[in-house]
C-alpha cells in the first residue's frame, strides 16, 4: 500500500522530481527560468499572467510551492507588495533574504523614475525604488538572464554548463527580438501613445513609442473626471491616436478616453501569458509590437516612408 501511496503523493505535488525547484513571482521570470533550465528545473509562477503584479493574492496554495523551492525569483523592488506574506507563510529559510535562494532580478538594472525628493502617498501608490516595470525590455531581459543563470549555476553546479549554454541562447534570441521589433516598428517610430498605468517606459526604449501621458493621474489611483477630461484634451492637442490599456486595468475607462479623443484603444499584456498568444518572453514582445502597429494602422496613423 505504501508503495502505491508515496509515488501518488509525489505526483500530486506542485513539483515533480527535478534538479532545481524554482518559484517566481511573475510569469516573465518563470519563462526565463524554463528557457534556461529546460528539463532540469521545475518552475512555478505565483502570478498567472493577466493580473496586476501589484495585487496578486499570496494564497497558502502558493506558499506550498515556495516551501519546497530552491530559488525564489522576484523583482527585488516594491513591485510585489505581497511577497513578504508569501515568504513568511512559506517557512523556507533557503529562499529568505540574504540566502543564495533569494534571486533579486533587479541586480544590474538602471531604474527609471527613481524618486529624488520627498516621497509620500499624495503621489499615489508611488514606488520608492523607481519604476518597477523593467521586465518589458528585451535588453533588460538579457541582463536578467545573467542574474538568473548565475543563481541557477550556484544552486545546481552539476548542470552549470547546461544552464550557461541555454542562457547564452536566450541572450542571443533576445538580441534578435530586440532588432526585429525595432525594425518592424520603424515606420511608426515616435508613435505617440497614452497608457493607463506607467508600465511602458522601459518598453519605449526597445520599441520607439512616445508615452506622452497616463490615464492614471497618480500611480494606482483611479483618475478624477476632471483629469480624464484634461488627458482627452491633451491627446487631441498632441494628436495621440493610440491608448494602451494593460490587461488588468479598467478597459472601459480606457475605451472612453480613446473614443473621446478620436483614438483607438488596445489591450496589451505587460507580462508573459497576459494573453494566451504571449506564451514566451519573445512572443510577448512580438505580440505587443504587432498589436501596436495594428492599432496605429486602424487609427489612421500614416507610416513613415523608409
Amino acid at each position, binding site marked *: 500500500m505504501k508503495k502505491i501511496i508515496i509515488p501518488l*503523493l509525489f505526483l500530486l505535488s506542485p513539483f515533480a522530481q527535478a534538479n532545481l525547484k524554482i518559484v517566481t513571482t511573475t510569469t516573465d521570470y518563470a519563462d526565463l527560468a524554463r528557457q534556461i533550465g529546460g528539463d532540469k528545473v521545475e518552475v512555478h509562477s505565483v502570478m498567472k499572467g493577466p493580473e496586476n503584479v501589484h495585487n496578486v*493574492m499570496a494564497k497558502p496554495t502558493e506558499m506550498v510551492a515556495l*516551501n*519546497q523551492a530552491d530559488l525564489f525569483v522576484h523583482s527585488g523592488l516594491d513591485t510585489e507588495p*505581497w511577497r513578504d*506574506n508569501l515568504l513568511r507563510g512559506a517557512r523556507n*529559510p533557503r529562499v529568505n533574504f540574504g540566502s543564495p535562494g533569494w534571486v533579486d532580478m533587479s541586480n544590474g538594472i538602471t531604474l527609471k523614475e527613481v524618486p529624488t525628493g520627498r516621497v509620500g502617498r499624495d503621489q499615489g501608490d508611488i514606488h520608492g525604488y523607481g519604476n518597477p516595470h523593467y521586465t518589458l525590455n528585451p535588453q533588460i531581459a538579457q541582463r536578467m538572464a545573467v542574474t538568473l543563470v548565475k543563481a541557477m549555476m550556484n544552486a545546481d553546479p552539476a548542470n552549470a554548463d547546461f544552464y550557461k549554454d541555454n542562457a547564452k541562447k536566450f541572450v542571443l534570441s533576445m538580441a534578435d527580438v530586440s532588432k526585429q521589433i525595432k525594425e518592424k516598428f520603424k515606420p511608426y517610430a515616435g508613435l505617440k501613445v497614452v497608457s493607463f498605468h506607467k508600465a511602458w517606459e522601459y518598453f519605449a526604449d526597445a520599441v520607439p513609442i512616445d508615452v506622452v501621458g497616463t490615464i492614471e493621474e497618480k500611480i494606482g489611483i483611479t483618475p478624477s473626471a476632471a483629469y480624464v477630461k484634461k488627458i482627452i484634451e491633451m491627446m487631441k492637442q498632441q494628436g495621440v491616436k493610440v491608448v494602451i490599456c494593460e490587461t488588468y486595468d*479598467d478597459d472601459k475607462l480606457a475605451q472612453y478616453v480613446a473614443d473621446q479623443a478620436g483614438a483607438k484603444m488596445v489591450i496589451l499584456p505587460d507580462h508573459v501569458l497576459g494573453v494566451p498568444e504571449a506564451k514566451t518572453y519573445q512572443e510577448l514582445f512580438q505580440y505587443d509590437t504587432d498589436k501596436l502597429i495594428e492599432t496605429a494602422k486602424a487609427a489612421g496613423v500614416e507610416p513613415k516612408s523608409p
Partner: protein
Amino acid sequence: MRKFAGLLAISLIPWSAGNVLAQDASPNQKLEQLEKRMNESESRHQAELKARDERISKLEEEMRQKAITPAPTKEDVDKVTSDILNDIDSRNPITQTQRTPASFNPDFAVVGDYHASLSTNNQNPARNRFDIGSVELDLRAAVDPRADGVVILPISRDVDDPLFFRGKSSANGNIDTSIDIEEAYIFLHDFGVPNLTAKLGRFHLRFGRQNILHSHDWPTVDNNFVNQSFLGSESLNDSGLSLSYVIPPKLIGGQYIEVIAEIISGEGNNDEGPVLNNSAFVDSPALNAHALWNHDIASDWNLEIGTSFLTGKRNDDNRQNANLCGADVTLIHTDPSGRFNNQLLQAEAIYGDIDTSRTETQHGFGAYFLAQQQLNRDWYAGCRFDWTKNALDDREEVWGVSPYVSWYWSEFLRFRLEYQHKAGDVKEEDTLYFQCTFIYGAHPPHPYWAVR
C-alpha cells in the same frame, strides 16, 4: 616553463654531442668539452628561470600595491587642492550628496477608523453619534535574523455597545477613552524546526477566520454577531504562546494544512470577554487549537476550511468551564482575466458549552454568512447575514441583515456605507453606518485572508 626548458636542454644534448664528436680531438677532451658546454647551458637555464621568477614576483607585488590604494600623485593632490580653493571662492551652493539611510527604526503606521451612525434606536448611546472609534499604532521590525517584533496599540474612544441591548440599563453611555495593548508579540519564524513558527506575547487568538483580523480589515463596519456573542465585541486577544505548524506539503501531496496550538492565560479581554474571563492563570490556562486546509479547487477558485476548539475557565472559579467549537469556510474567486470580477463567500459557526454558574451551562450557537462582489476597480458590495444565540443565555437570540458598499479611493483610504436591520430578543433597530478608514506610514501588506 621549467619542464619546457629542461626538455630543450635535453634535446640539445645529441646536437651538441654530434658537433663535439665531429671535431678532431681525443675522446677524453671531447667529453670534457661536452660536459663544459652542458654545465654552461644549465647555468644559463637556471639564470633565466631565476630572472623570470623575480619578474613574476615583481609584477605580483605591483598588482598588490595597485589593489591596496593608488597613492595620489603630486598632480592629483594639486588638482584637488585647486578645485577646493576654487569652490571656496565660488558662489555655488554646497554640493548635495544623496545617501541611502541605514535605519533601524521599526515600520510605523497609523490606522484611523472613523465611525458614524444614524439609527432608529435612540435609546442605545452607541447609536446616532460619530466619533473616531480608534487610532491604531502599528509598529513592526525584525528583532533578529530569525525573529520579528509586532506591537499594535489602539487608542480608542468607545461607547459600550452590547449585542443584546435591552434598554438604557444595559449600556451606560460613558465614553471610554483608553490605550490598550491589542497585540504585542515576538514572532519566531525560524527556530530550527522546519515549518514551525511561534508567537510569544499577546495576540489575536486563532479561532476561526475573522477573529485574527484587526477591525479595520473587516469586510463590514461592525463585527459579526456570533463573534460578538462568543468572543467579544471586537476580538478575543490573550497572552501566551502560539505555535503554528504547516505539515510538510511534500508528505501530503502538496496540500496546505496548518495546525495551530495556543496556550493562553485565559483572561480574555477582561470585562469584554464574554467567554473567558479568568484571572486564575496558574491554576487553569486556556487552550486553543485551530486547523485549516487551503486548496485551489480550480485555477481561479480557492477554498479554505477551518475548525477551532477553545477550552478554558470562566470567572475565577475553576469549576466553571467554557468550551467552544468553531468551523469556518471561505471561498474566493479571482477574476481569471486579471480584472475586477472577484467574489468572496465566507461563513463561520460557533457552538459553545459555557458554565454561567456551578449548576447552569449555556448551550449556545450561532453563525454568519457573508457574500461580497467586486463591482469595478474601486467598488465592492456585499451582504452579511447573522444569527446567534447569546453565549451566556441560550434562551436569547438575535439576527441581522447588513448590506454594504465599500469605496476605495486608494489602498490606504476607504469609505464604507452599511445598512443594518437587527431584530430578535433585542430592541429592533435599523441603522445606517458610515465608516472612513485611513492608513498612513509603513503599513505591511494585508495577508491573503483580508480580502478587501
